[in-house]
């Protein structure tokens, strides 16, 4: 891809692809569970497991805006960022804003809980179960299913908050955040030079993360 000097990469394609696949998968997973299409729910859930795992690995070895350690450092600026927001003096943040970091961690924690509990869940009739449910008793599997159901409400609430936040930025704070999540790019002039860390896409870690998550999915799929 030819680089446009006026634009700069904020979100690498792995972050964007994972994000939008999750946007498609969450409603599908909810719907298949509601309607009792459990074969589909299991397959899509395992796909989601792979995506969450990939994103967690990418948070350790991915591009700068995807990594958790730089995000954690941002949390220290939370108070001053909120102050600036209230005074309408905030500027664009390269990557996640201190508030967004909290959102990302909460969302990823809820997603990780959801896919993990799903692996061990057993339905009330003992007829349907997650791919690793053979490892647990009926009672334990039922407890996993209870957490799976409760945590979905938490996840849905967090997604609601996330969308609300994007809408507030869009309409109230006049900062358009959806388009960069599609194209990955923002105007270079949004940021001062010292704000910009190296945010290269990293192909070898990318392949490693993809292989590792795919292998984990295969192990689960062939378990038993």
């Amino acid at each position, binding site marked *: 891809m030819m680089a446009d000097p006026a634009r700069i990469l904020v979100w690498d394609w792995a972050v964007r692809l994972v994000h939008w696949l999750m946007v498609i998968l969450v409603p599908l997973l909810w719907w298949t569970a509601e309607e009792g299409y459990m074969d589909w729910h299991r397959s899509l859930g395992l796909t989601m497991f792979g995506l969450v795992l990939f994103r967690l690995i990418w948070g350790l070895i991915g591009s700068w805006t995807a990594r958790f350690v730089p995000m954690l450092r941002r949390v220290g600026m939370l108070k001053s960022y909120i102050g600036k927001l209230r005074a309408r003096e905030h500027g664009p943040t390269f990557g996640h804003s201190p508030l967004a970091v909290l959102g990302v961690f909460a969302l990823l924690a809820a997603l990780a809980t959801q896919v993990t509990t799903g692996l061990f869940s057993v339905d*009330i*009739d003992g*007829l349907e*179960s997650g*791919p690793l*449910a*053979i490892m647990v008793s*009926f009672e334990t599997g039922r407890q996993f299913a209870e957490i799976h159901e409760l945590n979905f409400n938490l996840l849905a609430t967090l997604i609601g908050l996330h969308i609300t936040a994007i809408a507030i930025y869009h309409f109230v704070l006049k900062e358009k955040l959806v388009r960069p999540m599609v194209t990955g790019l923002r105007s270079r002039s949004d940021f001062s030079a010292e704000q910009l860390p190296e945010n290269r896409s990293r192909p070898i870690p990318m392949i490693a993360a993809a292989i590792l998550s795919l292998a984990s999915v295969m192990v689960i799929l*062939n378990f*038993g």
Partner: protein
Amino acid sequence: MKRCKTKLILPALAGLTLLTACEQTAETAPNSGAANAELPNGLTVKEQVEARQGQLKKMGKAFKTISDQLKAGSPDLAQIQAAAAAVPKEAATMIDWFPEGTGPESGVETEALPVIWENKADFNLKVAALQDAAALLDSAAQTGDIAAIGAAFKTTGGTCKACHDKYRLDD
């Protein structure tokens, strides 16, 4: 009720909490009698509901064992056979688990819906369908033919679902 009213002078939130508490006691009080009422079979309503929940749970466990083994790369036939044999035995008396008066109106916590007793004939037919399917599952298990067991398990599960969709509270 008088206590509730006097407490309502308290700040709105505290008052509301108390009111809810009072309402709850008012709701459960008359029902505790129904829960302990004795049924023709000698059990109290509460005992009957708990007994059938226990029996259905046993069936759920047996189904999980079969489903686990069917999913496994090399199914343990002995486990499947034991579980498949248990299901028709457990289900044999199922129609008697739902005597009149053991629905949610008794105040005992149950997911059994009142429509069971409005459609008792249909309900009993659905129980019979499960019993037939479970007998077939048992005989399929004894042959050791995994494909046949899988098919019979699916059919049996379908009879569970057919009844639950209509007669059990959707959770």
